[in-house]
Structures are given as C-alpha cells and as structure tokens.
C-alpha cells in the first residue's frame, strides 16, 4: 500500500484516525481497479470533492469538447479584460503590460481635459440614439404590416428583397452611398440637377452626415431586424383575432390591440440589449463614411480610439477612452434593465 510508505506527517490526522475506514479497504480494493484505492481514501475524507469528481468522470470528454474554444476565449477575450489596466499605465511595448509605469488616472484626466470629449460623446450618443429611434419602430411596423398583408406570395418577395441588403458588406454599402451621392456623377445629384436644384456635396455636408448614416442603416437593416418580430407574431393565437372580428374590430384595431401588445416582451428585450451598446456605435460604418470635412460630426468614440491607438500608437490613452466607454455602456445596460424591470416584468436579468 502506497499510503503506508508516505511520511508520517502527511498521513497523520487524515488516515491514522480513520482506522475503520482502513479496515474496509480490502473490500474496496477488490471492487475497483487496482491502484485507485489511494484516491478512494482521499475522496472518502472529502465527500464534497468526491461527488464533483465522480460526476465529472462520466463526462470529462465533454470538457475536452469545450477546451479549444475556452482557451482562445481566455487568451483573446479575458486576458484583454485584465489588460485593460494599461489604461492606468504608461504603456511601453518594450516593458510589456505588467512592466509599464503606473500613472493612475492621468490618461483619463487627459481625455476629460481635452476639447474632444464633449464632442465625441455627443456625436456618439446622437448617432446611436437616432439610429435606435429610427430603426426600432421601422422594424416593428414592417413586421406588423407584413404579418397583416393579404397577398402571401407578394409578401414572400418583399421579405426576400428587404432581407437582402443585410448581407451587403459595410464597405460595399458605404461605397454605394458615396457613389450615389457623388457630386459629379451620382444619381441623386443628377436628379437634383434635372429638377433644377443645385449640386449638393452630400458627404462633405456636416448637416447631412447623420441622416445619411442613420437612414442608410435603416435601409440596410429594416428587413432583417423585422425577422425576429415577424417570427414572434406567428405565436399570436388566432382565437384573439377571431374573437375581435366577432366583436367588429377592424384590422387596424386588431393590430393595435392584439399584435402590438404581444410584441412588447420581445421589444423590451431588444431595447435593453441595444441600450447596453448605445455608446458602442459600429466602428466599421462610421469610419468608412468619415472624411476630413465631416469629421466634426462623424468622429465617434470608436473611431477616435482607433485613430489614437493604432495610427498614433498612443495605446494607453486610447485604452482609457475605450474603458470609459465600456463603463458607461455597463451603467446604461444595468439602469435600463432596472427601469424596465420596475415598469414591467420584462427585464433581461
């Protein structure tokens, strides 16, 4: 027996006092394969651990299934979360994340003392609130309209076509916008000129940029974001509609009082999710539509972070801005969730 060869101080208290336990060992030894009785005793001494390990014994290979994904997620997702501390340091690539000097809140102070931060936060907030305010109702209304549409085959066609832009890449989308709105050869300006108007240089026009950004987003996303509502509407029980018809409700009244309330939980859930990312407007599109002339309205936190971090290599400062952004996002998410939880039972968590 291995245990008897162990030094006294290791086994004392644990095993010596359990003479009774040792007495039944031979029986156990016969039951299990040889050599595991050591583990058996250890486990017997610690019942909680035993249950867990024994449970794991049946499906340890399922853990192997998860392992590759977990390793990469730890490396590229959780280590960066830990690495956010470079926001509080003066990051030097040579010294590494953990060797760089600690500077406290200096990077944050620099951001809040600069003239940029008010503009950035305003641009970001306006853009995302505007996108949400425009895109959210459009998706719901589109789903309600499609659901009540009488011509089934035409409806399928409309759905197929409105979903399609969702699969156009951001770059192509922005390329199309720039092409259509081009002052010299663009279609839109051709029409304006044909109607006797003056050429508008849309992409350089500060007052136009937000509208272009938001409504092109609605154009691209409305079909796809309506899918989830359309799917939910399939769950409305026909009895409600039948009862309402008997009571003489018109179609519009039925949509307003049956379909719309039915969508409320889905809407709340998506609204909360969107609120959580209100300060993280997609980098890709804003950056692609940016140029020197529209920068006063098109510069958002994400593009600012990119410009300072990647192009100017001011990594610590850029991280500080990014960290501040995530903190605000989390606060918003929790707050909105709390408020909706108070108002209805539809809170996310």
């Amino acid at each position, binding site marked *: 027996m291995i245990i008897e060869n162990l030094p006294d101080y290791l086994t004392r208290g644990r095993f010596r006092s359990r003479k009774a336990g040792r007495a039944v060992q031979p029986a156990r030894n016969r039951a299990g394969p040889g050599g595991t009785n050591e583990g058996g005793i250890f486990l017997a001494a610690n019942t909680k651990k035993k249950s867990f390990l024994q449970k794991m014994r049946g499906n340890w290979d399922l853990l192997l299934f998860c392992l590759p*994904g977990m390793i990469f997620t730890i490396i590229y997702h959780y280590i960066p979360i830990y690495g956010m501390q470079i926001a509080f340091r003066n990051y030097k690539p040579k010294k590494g994340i953990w060797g760089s000097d600690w500077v406290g809140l200096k990077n944050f102070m620099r951001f809040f003392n600069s003239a940029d931060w008010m503009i950035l936060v305003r641009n970001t907030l306006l853009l995302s609130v505007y996108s949400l305010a425009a895109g959210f109702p459009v998706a719901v209304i*589109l789903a309600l309209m499609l659901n009540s549409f*009488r011509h089934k085959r035409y409806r399928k066609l409309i759905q197929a*076509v409105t979903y399609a832009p969702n*699969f156009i890449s951001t770059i192509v989308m922005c390329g199309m916008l720039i092409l259509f709105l081009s002052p010299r050869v663009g279609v839109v300006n051709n029409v304006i000129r044909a109607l006797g108007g003056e050429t508008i240089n849309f992409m350089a026009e500060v007052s136009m940029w937000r509208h272009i950004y938001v409504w092109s987003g609605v154009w691209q996303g409305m079909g796809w974001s309506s*899918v989830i509502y359309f799917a939910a509407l399939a769950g409305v029980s026909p009895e409600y509609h039948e009862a309402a018809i008997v009571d003489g409700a018109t179609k519009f009244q039925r949509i307003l009082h049956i379909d719309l309330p039915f969508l409320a939980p*889905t809407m709340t859930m998506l609204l909360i999710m969107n609120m959580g990312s209100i300060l993280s407007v997609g980098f890709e599109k804003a950056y692609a539509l940016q140029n020197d*002339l529209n920068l006063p309205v098109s510069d958002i936190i994400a593009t600012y972070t990119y410009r300072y971090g990647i192009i100017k290599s001011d990594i610590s400062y850029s991280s500080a801005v990014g960290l501040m952004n995530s903190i605000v996002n*989390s606060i918003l998410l929790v707050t909105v969730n709390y408020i909706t939880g108070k108002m209805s039972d539809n809170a996310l968590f």
Partner: protein
Amino acid sequence: MEGTHKHVRRARADVIYDTIIFIILTFLFLIVAYPLYFVIISSISDPIAVSAGKVVFAPVGFTLDGYKEVFKTKTVVRGFLNSLVITVMGTSINLLVTIPTSYALSRPDFTLKRPITLFYILTMFVGGGMMPTYVVVRNTGLLNTWWALVLPGCLGVYNMIVARTFFKTNIPLELMEAAKLDGCGNTKFFLYVVLPLSGAITAILCLYYGVGHWNSYFSALIYIQKRELWPLQLELRNILVLNSNVMTRQVMTEEELLEKRRLDALKEMMKYSLIIISSIPVLIIYPFVQKHFVKGVMIGSVKG
C-alpha cells in the same frame, strides 16, 4: 389565417387599411430593390451614360468593360483570392470550435454546463476593448497573419447559443442513453450519431460565419499591414471609399489633375462592376439559403 375569412365581406375600414398597406409595402419594396437594380444595370452600361444620368430603367450601351477592368486590377483579384482563403479557413475553424462546444453545453448531464455557459455569456457584455486586444494579438505573434482574423473570434457566442438550442431540441437524450448502454462513449457518440444528424445547423453556422468573414474589414484594418495579405474588403475600401469624389480642398498641379481625371474615369467605370463581383459569393448562395438564415434567427430568438 386571413384566408379562412375570405367568405366574410371585408369591412370598409379593412379595405382602406389593406390598400394603404399595399401601397406602403410596395413603396418600401421599390426603395430597397431599386438601388440594387440600379447597380446591376449600371455595371453593364456605358459609363458616360451612367454619369450623365441616362441609365434609369434599363442598361444603356451594353458593355462589359467595367468587369474587364476589375479582372485586370491585380490587387482586386489577389484580394478576392485572399478573402476566399480567409473565409474557408476561418469558417472551418469556427465550425471545429463551435459545434463540439455547443453540443457539450446542450447536454443536461454535463457537470460544467452552467459555469462554461456563463463564461461565454459574460463575453457578450464585457470586453477588453480595441487596444488591450490589439496588444494581446501582437504579443501572441499574430500581427500580419491571417490567424489574427480567425482565432480571436473563433467562437461566436450568438452562433453557439443557436447551435446549442438546435442540439437540445434535435438530439433526444434517449438516443444517448441507448448508445451508452451499448458501450458508446461521448466522443464516439458525437462523431457517429450527433454529427450526421446536424446537417441543418452546420449549414446555418457555415452561412453566418462565412458571410461574416467575407464582409468584415475591421480586424484586417487593425491587424494586417502587409498589402499582399489584405482581404478583398480592404482593397474595396481603397477603391470605393478612399478614392471617392469628395471635393477636398487640395491644391493640385495641372499634371496631377489630369492624371487624377484619367484614373477617376477608369474607376467610375469599374466601381459598379466591383460591387457586383465582390457580392457574388453571397449573391449566389443567398436565394438558396435565405430560409436557413431566417431559421437561425428563429432558433436563436427562442433563448434570447
């Protein structure tokens, strides 16, 4: 549902409602469809007619010069091939990681199911942000390699949830118990029973991941400086976005201006064709897979 009430005379309010809906939806349909149609007809029209605004309903002066120009542009062809390789490589890795993980997490008897699910859900809400991630990618030596586009996002949490829901509803537990009685372990069961049954979910994941890889440019913009490794979207950005006709107030010499004009004409010609060609892989599969895409959203919506 409406069909069952056809024999009932529709109320006047309903007739008005139906008419309004018909008009609005047709309007929306045209708004979405026309720009797409316009790109197609412009790509096969005479560029001068396009810029003069003569192309409205049908192509004018049929020509394929734009497409020829695209195929002559080496950077675009290289980008296209790069993107194909990245998409295939990325999607394969995504599938290799996502499918086993979501299967394991779909098993109610998996002891670590809860903590690991939480581990992934958390990543949806907290993240390190652009710069800390960049530093880690650089320190792991992935900068200027395609691995940087593939490994950090090798498991999409949303896709994982969709797949997990699929396995939960489509692989009965009894099947596993029966296999276990016959002495079949988890790995064997996964390889010989689960995988052959998961064709539909594999298709959905392939499409979600594939389209994502094909369309993204952000990671490549950050992590890849070497032009030879650029995916198509970055090359497109150079042509479609950066060389756009925004009148920046730059002072140019006469020669530069002439050269710019020549290039402009050439580029205008090929931009429409370029949009079409870059969307071809997605366009080709879209009609066949639209149903799957929608199915994916519906599976996902069941479990938030």
